[in-house]
């Protein structure tokens, strides 16, 4: 090898270094530039601002951006589901584009390979466009009611905007939570306040929840949920790119293209209203049976639920006592089309048998949630450690 050879090969090595640096530049630059300057604020001040910003109707400034949702919940491997299925949101990473003009002007687009799903809200009108089926659905929203994520066929990411998630979490702050504020973080290139909510109880699987509020507008830009003992968030939803300029009007104008199937649905009309009622009744039934053990972050929900029903539903799958272990869940991946049976099957296979003075059951543990299915027909679910949930199972 001559000197010239080294010099020559230095060029591609330098090129690789430059490219690598460019890829990793974002975090590096942020680290070098140091902490963005935001005045210090107490948690209460920030909470008040945040509640003001999220609570006030139409209080959000017009904005547009890209929202990314990433989940690594440590679930047992789920059977493959369609990309539009809600189950697919439980693992991997998803991206939606959001244009927000005013309280009644919103466009959410979920672009996928050569397809796109859109939800466009303009005034009292809502359009749901799915290019895969070439169908435009007109949803007429009754004045005063916002489309709830459960009763409309909206793309699931619609109820996952940082605003809504933050609002949900903010409602739960209380005596069980240690709250602090970090004023040195950045999200989507903007300096943010991070509101850190950490459970005081060690029994919780959640280490902390971080809500990033924009330093200027107090719009929630990101929500991260950290599981105990892991450095990467188990669940994260937030803007990867955001601008606070009013988006172009044509984003909110939608006319069904020629040749598309057009369907109409009125929210709150008889059919759907009835269904909602039924659903509410069913929810009431479940709520009647529901018992909560513990409080705060370590509360465990107990629902009557029998394994016999479950396995009967799973088409006579015999009880898989002793068939535990993570190795067993690989085979289902190519199996079903995401039908509940395959899902149950794969979840149950990864369950660990546990027992105590209260009896015995199967324990399913993920990064954030533990579930215990007892043999005497109870289902316990909580964001707690297995020890806690076993303790809760002893409480009658």
């Amino acid at each position, binding site marked *: 090898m001559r000197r010239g050879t080294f010099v020559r090969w230095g060029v*591609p090595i330098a090129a690789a270094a430059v490219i690598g640096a460019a890829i990793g530049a974002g975090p590096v630059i942020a680290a070098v530039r140091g902490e963005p300057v935001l005045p210090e604020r107490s948690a209460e001040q920030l909470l008040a601002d945040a509640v003001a910003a999220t609570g006030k109707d139409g209080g959000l400034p017009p904005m547009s951006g890209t929202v990314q949702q990433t989940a690594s919940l440590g679930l047992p491997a789920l059977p493959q589901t369609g990309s539009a299925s809600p189950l697919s949101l439980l693992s991997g990473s998803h991206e939606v584009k959001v244009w927000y003009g005013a309280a009644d002007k919103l466009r959410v687009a979920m*672009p996928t390979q050569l397809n796109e799903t859109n939800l466009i809200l303009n005034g009292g009108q809502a359009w749901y466009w799915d290019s895969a089926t070439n169908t435009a659905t007109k949803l007429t929203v009754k004045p005063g009611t916002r489309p709830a994520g459960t009763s409309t066929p909206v793309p699931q990411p619609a109820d996952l905007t940082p605003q809504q998630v933050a609002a949900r979490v903010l409602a739960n702050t209380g005596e069980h939570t240690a709250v602090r504020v970090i004023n040195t973080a950045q999200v989507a290139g903007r300096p943010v306040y991070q509101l850190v909510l950490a459970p005081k109880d060690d029994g919780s699987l959640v280490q902390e929840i971080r809500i990033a509020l924009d330093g200027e507008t107090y719009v929630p830009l990101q929500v991260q949920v950290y599981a105990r003992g892991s450095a990467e968030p188990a669940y994260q939803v937030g803007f990867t790119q955001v601008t606070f300029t009013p988006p172009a009007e044509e984003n909110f104008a939608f006319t069904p*293209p020629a040749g598309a199937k057009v369907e109409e649905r009125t929210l709150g009309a008889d059919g759907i209203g009835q269904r909602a009622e039924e659903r509410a009744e069913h929810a009431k039934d479940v709520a009647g049976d529901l018992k909560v053990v513990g409080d705060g972050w370590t509360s465990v929900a107990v629902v009557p639920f029998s394994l016999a029903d479950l396995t009967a539903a799973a088409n006579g799958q015999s009880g898989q006592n002793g068939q535990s272990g993570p190795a067993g869940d690989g085979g289902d991946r190519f199996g079903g089309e995401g039908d509940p049976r395959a899902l149950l099957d794969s979840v149950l296979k990864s369950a660990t048998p546990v027992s105590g003075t209260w009896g015995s059951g199967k324990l399913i543990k993920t990064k954030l949630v533990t579930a215990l299915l007892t043999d005497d027909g109870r289902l316990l679910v909580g964001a707690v450690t297995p020890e806690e949930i076993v303790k809760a199972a002893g409480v009658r």
Partner: protein
Amino acid sequence: MSTGDGATPGTATLGRRTPGLVPVTETMRTSERRAPEPPPAAAPEPPEPAARAMGAFWRLLGSELGLTFRRPRNLVMLAVLAMVPVVVGVALRAFGSGDDDMSGIVQDVAGNSLMLTFVSFSFLVLLLMPVAVSVVAGDSIAGEAGGGTLRYLLAAPAGRTRLLAVKYLNAAVYAYAVTAVVALSALVTGLILFPAGDVTLLSGTTISLGDGLLRIAVAVAYVGAGMAALAAVAVALSTFTEVPIGAIAGTMVLVIVCQVLRAIPELAVITPYLLPTWFTNFDAVLRAPIDMGALGEGLLAFGAYIVLFGSIAWARFSGKDITS
């Protein structure tokens, strides 16, 4: 190696030594190649004026392009690629009507002629277009080395860097030709078989025909850039071997391995670093507004691949011992 001055590419040295080289049978290819080269360019004039150097560069590129586009193999590949949109269009026309369970994009084709271009791209960028591009690009250096013509090319005081640049540009032009042929064939087929008119985008917005043609042009530019990036990989592999089929097969194996890796959901982390991931981003032009972010990211990825593999090819080729 026997030629000890391989590490110092003195073309003048090679030029002086040309008469002493082992005689090689003058093939059809070599005679053809020598013909368009004007004698002055071959004369060893040490300090060439920049303008004349540029002139020689373009002449060399011109002769390379002439060879590439006259070679029957390359023309056959273009013809095959042009046939695919025709077949797809005829099949959709013949069997695609009436069924309700067609996927959206196929229905869009039935409704508008321009969509056939995008459907054809989405089929072809995965494998067939990369094959055509890697055949030409993988053949670029290795083909000359294997055919024994590389040293004659280097006998001209052109320099290896310039030869490599010409070879790469030649492959990039072919990459764009492949893309344009597919687009044109799809466009003509679509206009004959399906109604023309306003174009419905994936976002459900409708745009005019002219605007649609403009978007096709953007898609051609983007896909062509992607194929040119693949050509850089193939040229780099081509400098490592004297067997052209090795470089071609190597590139194809890389493409296929990338496609396999992309299909594994557990490896989603690495997919942004794989070149074929970015080929399909052309569908950004079918959104309203055009997703410039996706296109820009893709072009950056292509640029990174071209710079990286271009420099690898240069480092290898400028220090290579030329034995054939």
